[in-house]
């Protein structure tokens, strides 16, 4: 059958332009077979990477009909079926669309473009140096320090090795990095490929740098930079599910840090806490607790003032909050999950064996402030298990010792003082907004 290959071509010095190559193909031909024939039979200057032809080397990643994929894995028949199903659902969709799938002549058109998030060198060949640099940034090697222990070999049980299977399948093709939404606006973010590898290192029973690694990945260049767009999971040709691996890193960090460690961590902990309190999220409180850190972060709180006033002015700031009628049930359910997980390692997910390692016995480092001998449940009761201990069926929880009131220049007095000052400050701002007068005019002083 005849297929039009609409290939986006460019060099470092020329603007991208589309070049259409007609080709007689078989449904079983891979996209790579087709590109090879175009290069050999029609235009020898067409540039693309290739090597193994068998979904092993990861060289031929490119954007095929709108998403990153391996040219050697996708074939004409599958692509045609995909385009036909899209077309069947959107018969009128050819107007004003970039990269139409079917030309007016009814000849199927495949759009082939270089990967995203990397500069193009020529045609479908991109400069992957940032991709490799970011991989290197997570130190993707089992720590050699552990080699100083007396054993000559590092033995693993089959179960310990199995935990590395999914991440070990990564062939570093770049498809996830190409589609990563977070990479587009955060040049510091190392990317899904690097973080999947990072988790592979954390999960490896032989590696003894767990605590240092988790500390290293605990910012927006690491795990918290992921915006959970699911693109990496959806395009990975090897089912590595990088976003899920990033999630495992976050689980490990959340298990060993309290809500004061960072705003990203506080965001997660406040979510759980608020659901235990009211079933739904009380949005009036959420920003105050997460961004304002319950009046501890004055700058953060001040950053919310314009948003709050805007929402108030447009009638969008909720004035009331109605807790779910099932709050008591969901609170005790969350307590039960937390109690269960604090007793035993995390439960196995359905499908493949759990990626979560059990406690490693190879760790020798005791230097770090974070426990290096990581357990997959919080060693201490989390912040979340504190506030709602009134639940009738609540699991045993500890009570948090609140700072006692005292006279003089104590930390408690300072904290209370700061909170009242902030309440006064915000009240003044609101007063000025609604009266359209400044404070001194309102007092009648001028």
């Amino acid at each position, binding site marked *: 059958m005849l297929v039009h290959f609409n290939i986006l071509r460019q060099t470092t010095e020329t603007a991208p332009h589309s070049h259409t190559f007609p080709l007689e193909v078989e449904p079983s031909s891979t996209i790579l077979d087709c590109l090879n024939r175009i290069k050999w039979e029609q235009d020898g200057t067409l540039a693309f990477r290739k090597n193994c032809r068998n979904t092993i080397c990861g060289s031929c990643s490119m954007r095929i009909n709108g998403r990153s994929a391996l040219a050697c894995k996708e074939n004409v028949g599958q692509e045609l079926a995909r385009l036909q199903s899209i077309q069947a659902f959107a018969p009128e969709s050819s107007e004003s669309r970039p990269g139409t799938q079917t030309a007016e002549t009814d000849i199927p058109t495949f759009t082939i473009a270089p990967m995203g998030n990397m500069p193009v060198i020529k045609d479908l060949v991109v400069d992957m140096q940032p991709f490799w640099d970011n991989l290197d940034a997570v130190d993707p090697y089992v720590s050699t320090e552990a080699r100083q222990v007396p054993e000559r070999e590092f033995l693993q049980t089959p179960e310990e090795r199995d935990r590395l299977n999914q991440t070990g399948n990564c062939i570093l093709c770049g498809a996830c990095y190409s589609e990563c939404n977070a990479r587009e606006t955060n040049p510091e973010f190392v990317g899904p490929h690097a973080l999947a590898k990072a988790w592979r290192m954390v999960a490896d029973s032989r590696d003894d740098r767990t605590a240092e690694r988790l500390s290293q990945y605990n910012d927006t260049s690491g795990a918290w930079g992921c915006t959970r767009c699911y693109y990496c999971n959806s395009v990975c040709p090897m089912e590595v599910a990088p976003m899920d691996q990033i999630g495992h890193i976050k689980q490990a960090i959340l298990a060993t840090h309290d809500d004061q460690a960072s705003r990203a961590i506080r965001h997660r902990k406040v979510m759980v806490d608020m659901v235990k309190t009211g079933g739904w999220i009380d949005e009036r409180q959420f920003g105050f607790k997460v961004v304002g850190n319950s009046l501890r972060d004055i700058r953060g709180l001040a950053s919310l003032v314009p948003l709050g006033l805007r929402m108030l002015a447009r*009638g969008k700031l909720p004035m009331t909050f109605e807790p779910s009628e099932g709050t008591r049930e969901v609170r005790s359910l969350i307590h039960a999950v937390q109690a269960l997980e604090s007793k035993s390692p995390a439960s196995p997910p359905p499908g493949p064996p759990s990626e979560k390692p059990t406690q490693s016995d190879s760790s020798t480092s005791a230097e770090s402030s974070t426990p290096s001998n990581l357990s997959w449940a919080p060693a201490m009761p989390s912040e979340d298990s504190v506030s709602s201990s009134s639940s009738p069926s609540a699991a045993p929880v500890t009570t948090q010792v609140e700072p006692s009131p005292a006279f003089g220049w104590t930390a408690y007095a300072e904290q209370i003082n700061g909170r009242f000052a902030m309440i006064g400050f915000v009240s003044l701002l609101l007063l000025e907004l609604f009266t359209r007068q400044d404070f001194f005019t309102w007092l009648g002083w001028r």
Partner: protein
Amino acid sequence: MTLKYAYFPGCVAQGACRELYQSTAALTQALGIELVELKKASCCGSGTFKEDSQLLEDAVNARNIALAESLQLPLLTHCSTCQGVIGRVNDRLKQAETQNPAYFNQVNGLLKQEGCSPYRGTTEVRHLLWALVGDFGLEALAERVTQRLSGLKCAAFYGCYLLRAQDHLPYDDPHDPQSMENVFRTVGATPVYYRGRTQCCGWPLASYATEQSFQMAGGHIQEAIAAGADCIVTPCPLCHLNLDSRQPEVEAVVGRSLKLPILHLPQLVALALGISPQQLGLDRHVVSTQPVLRKLGLLTPSP
């Protein structure tokens, strides 16, 4: 036959996007779709529960699904994120029932222990968009249109979780969806296509990586404007928060005025059914929706 759903309203529609709650109610009432609100449901976690623990996300949402199951109804949501999270939990627990019964029983054991209805895997999680496209049907919808939104150029913004959280979508290709655009055509509006329509709005980062989050939102809004859009229409209230409520801050980050109205999906459809803009809360957006109403000739002169 009357369509009937167990309605999961979600947090945002009961809070900062109350206009979504209003417009879903108005739309379903006009179409004769019956909603039974799940008053005992709870927040799905918007993807963050899983970052704490998979069991937490599964148990909380198994409970939500079980509430719908006890009514023998499909669960309806009007939020892309709720759809992706609860839909994925439903998919994985259905799979676990045969492939990992120990896990399935663990989740149900927790539900039983806390006095919740058991999860049985007998229902579906349906986004309002899918209910319109698949259950009600676009042809039936077209028959109900009384005010065609002719000339209005709409840019869809799907939301990540609606497209990619679940392995299989009932109607759409995750990388080239058409449901929203088909709805636009059905109500007489013109879809405009732009790259960002399937991408992340930036909301998950907004609380702590604010600038990156707003750059994401700003990039998409600018692309939609460049494609000629009069408005963005989204089936996700979290996307709405970042694209509408925070648009003034987004403007500051990208350094240009945007002022692109952002509509909720049921607002757009309900306008075509002749429901008044006030009833749909179109006056409760941060970015004024007046340019859209003006274009449609729906702007009532102020008294």
